[in-house]
């Protein structure tokens, strides 16, 4: 290249840098109408950050925002959403913003360790136990749930909804045709699965990567029982123990009864196998109910549900919640939003549309369908345990290590190696010695 060309190139670069420098760093603020009289309550902008971008979730959020706006008309809500299933992308964006010291007003986060280990431990959240005391929520939320939300004796977020992870969905016609009853225990599952397999039906529909971890956590719960399952995450249940080995063996055995091409299917495609009748059962969170209904199926008529094998009496819960970031812009408005999130009106606006149950135990039952009503009953009476894959039970780094162990296990099917990896993961997480 000649000298002339070089200087031309340099000139272009200089212009590019100058242009970049001149571009406005932040989009111009939306003009806000000057209030004609002294506003009651908070005002100004409130940015609400979530990954509720599609379908029932987005509509549920809209409904809850309406409740909020009716009560706090002076707050200008900025509904900031980042698309991506289970918040995978939203979490990366959020982490960057929190690191950069620019937290949104309020943000959606899975309740439990995902929130605690990521944001609370690093001192980026303000505890909101005082809000629970002021609003009298301590009596309205189940104690087990409060435990999941707590760290260092403080509560860190307001759960808006509850989903149940340990649900086994089944095709009623398939069971009736084969004169079978849906299995309640692990042993029953294997008996039933063997018969279904002999009849040429896939016993259990499974999907890609994360649904494998999802199934794994329900097998841990179903084999160990709720108390020991909780102990796994607190370091009181030994990952080296024979019971855990038993759970891993159950999981290994279960994988013999799934569709061969599970890695090719998303969770809803796996659920579709049950609708098609090619598979009999599917273990999936209760968002699957919405999928069944979207296909014109009625709960209790074409499809039934039961706790995943062995997990009756336990409610494997996950929850979307909102917390209070330290130095949140417009703290008063955030607190107002959190009050709506925790209120009966807010939760009953959001949940029937989203297809989940309220985290409060005093939701209006008449708003919910027959499945959700049964979930509400179980939520009030069962032992509530935190979901692993959905962020409640373990720190994200621990979860990732377990996810990798499950992924490798599915390829090599070596229980001993699997257990070693899980033991090591617990030690790396600093929970086990």
């Amino acid at each position, binding site marked *: 290249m000649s000298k002339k060309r070089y200087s031309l190139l340099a000139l272009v670069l200089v212009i590019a840098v100058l242009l970049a420098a001149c571009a406005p760093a932040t989009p111009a603020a939306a003009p806000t109408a000057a209030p004609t009289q002294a506003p009651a309550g908070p005002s100004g902008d409130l940015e609400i950050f979530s990954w509720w971008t599609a379908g029932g979730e987005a509509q549920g959020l809209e409904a809850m925002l309406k409740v909020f706006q009716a009560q706090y008309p002076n707050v200008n809500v900025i509904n900031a959403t980042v698309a991506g299933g289970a918040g995978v992308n939203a979490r990366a964006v959020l982490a960057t913003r929190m690191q950069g010291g620019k937290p949104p007003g309020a943000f959606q986060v899975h309740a439990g360790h995902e929130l605690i280990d990521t944001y609370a431990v690093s001192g980026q959240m303000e505890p909101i136990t005082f809000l629970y005391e002021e609003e009298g929520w301590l009596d309205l939320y189940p104690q087990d749930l409060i435990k999941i939300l707590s760290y260092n004796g403080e509560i860190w977020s307001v759960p808006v909804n509850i989903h149940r992870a340990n649900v086994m969905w089944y095709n009623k016609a398939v069971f009736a045709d084969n004169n079978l009853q849906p299995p309640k225990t692990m042993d029953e599952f294997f008996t039933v699965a063997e018969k279904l397999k002999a009849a040429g039906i896939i016993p259990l529909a499974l999907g890609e990567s994360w649904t494998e971890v999802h199934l794994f956590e329900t097998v841990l719960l179903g084999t160990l029982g709720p108390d020991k399952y909780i102990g796994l995450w607190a370091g009181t249940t030994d990952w080296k123990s024979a019971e855990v080995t038993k759970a891993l063996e159950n999981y290994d055995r279960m994988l013999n009864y799934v569709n061969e091409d599970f890695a090719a299917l998303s969770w809803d495609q796996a659920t579709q196998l049950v609708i098609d009748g090619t598979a009999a059962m599917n273990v999936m969170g209760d968002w699957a109910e919405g999928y069944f209904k979207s296909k014109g199926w009625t709960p209790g008529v074409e499809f039934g549900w039961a706790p995943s094998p062995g997990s009756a009496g336990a409610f494997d819960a996950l929850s979307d919640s909102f917390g209070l970031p330290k130095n949140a812009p417009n703290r008063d408005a955030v607190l107002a939003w959190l009050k709506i999130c925790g209120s009966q009106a807010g939760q009953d606006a959001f949940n029937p549309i989203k297809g989940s149950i309220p985290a409060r135990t005093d939701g209006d039952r008449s708003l919910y369908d027959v499945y959700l009503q049964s979930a509400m009953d179980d939520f009030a009476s069962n032992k509530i345990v935190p979901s692993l894959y959905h962020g409640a039970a373990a720190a994200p780094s621990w979860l990732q290590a377990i996810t990798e162990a499950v*992924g490798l296990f599915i*390829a090599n099917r070596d229980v001993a190696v699997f257990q070693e990896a899980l033991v090591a993961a617990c030690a790396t997480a600093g929970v086990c010695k």
Partner: protein
Amino acid sequence: MRIRKDRLLAIALISPSVVAIAIFVYAFIAWTIRASLSSWEGLLPDYTFVGLANFTQLFRDPRFQIDLRNTGIFTVLFLVACLVVGLLLAILLDLRPRGEAVFRNVYLFPMAISFIVTGVVWRWLLNPATSLERLSGINLLFHQAGLDFLVSRWYTSRNFGIAAIVIPATWQMSGFTMALYLAGIRGIPEELREAARVDGASESQIYRYVVMPMLKTVTLSAVIILGHTSLKIFDLVMAITQEGGQGYSADVPALNMWYTAFRALRFARGAAIAIIILTTVAVLIIPYLIHTLRSEVEQ
């Protein structure tokens, strides 16, 4: 005096980009190295020095071992496929078939698409479902053509899942290799070929003994450019497999790095993976840079 003025102007013009590159490339590399030697986990930076602990852990990690193996397989297959296909296309176009310009553009077009778009399209085409009622994409084509033995689990197949990723990567980049080769071939003086013809060489002999030896430098450039693409590949694998296939059958270090840093928030370990990727690319690029620098000086 005039010359000095020119120089000043040149320095003034070039300094912004030098500064920008110094900060945004080299300073960040230094910062990543520092992070990779630390124990940073979670959102708050923690620069406690732990030496090479992250690296030794990584090399013991079964997933990372698979990643390294996959990168090796991918790079070799991808390079060979691109070079062979690219050269073949270039030779065919060099024979000046009718509509040469059209073909040249058709083969080059995939280059204009980003890997993400290619990935999304090929995710459909390479749908790994194998049971009859769920066949789609290429598997369905095979089935309808009666070629059921070709139905594959693609990127989820046990040991060579990564090989399936080579297909879209080659589809996208072989046109580029073709362009490089075609330019190289067209740059060969016609007299040389004429001379060979006069000596009684057949067309294939001309390509073998006259054209190919003169394309060595082109091949080297292609290997460098394709090689660093394949060592760093992320977007294509992300779009097609999302989590690296079944049992990490199609996982690569860059994907592992993304999940380690941004999902597990293990930034130190993620930085260590980044440094390993950088090192492998540097091993490829630096000798090339030194080589070209020397030949430029000689000229």
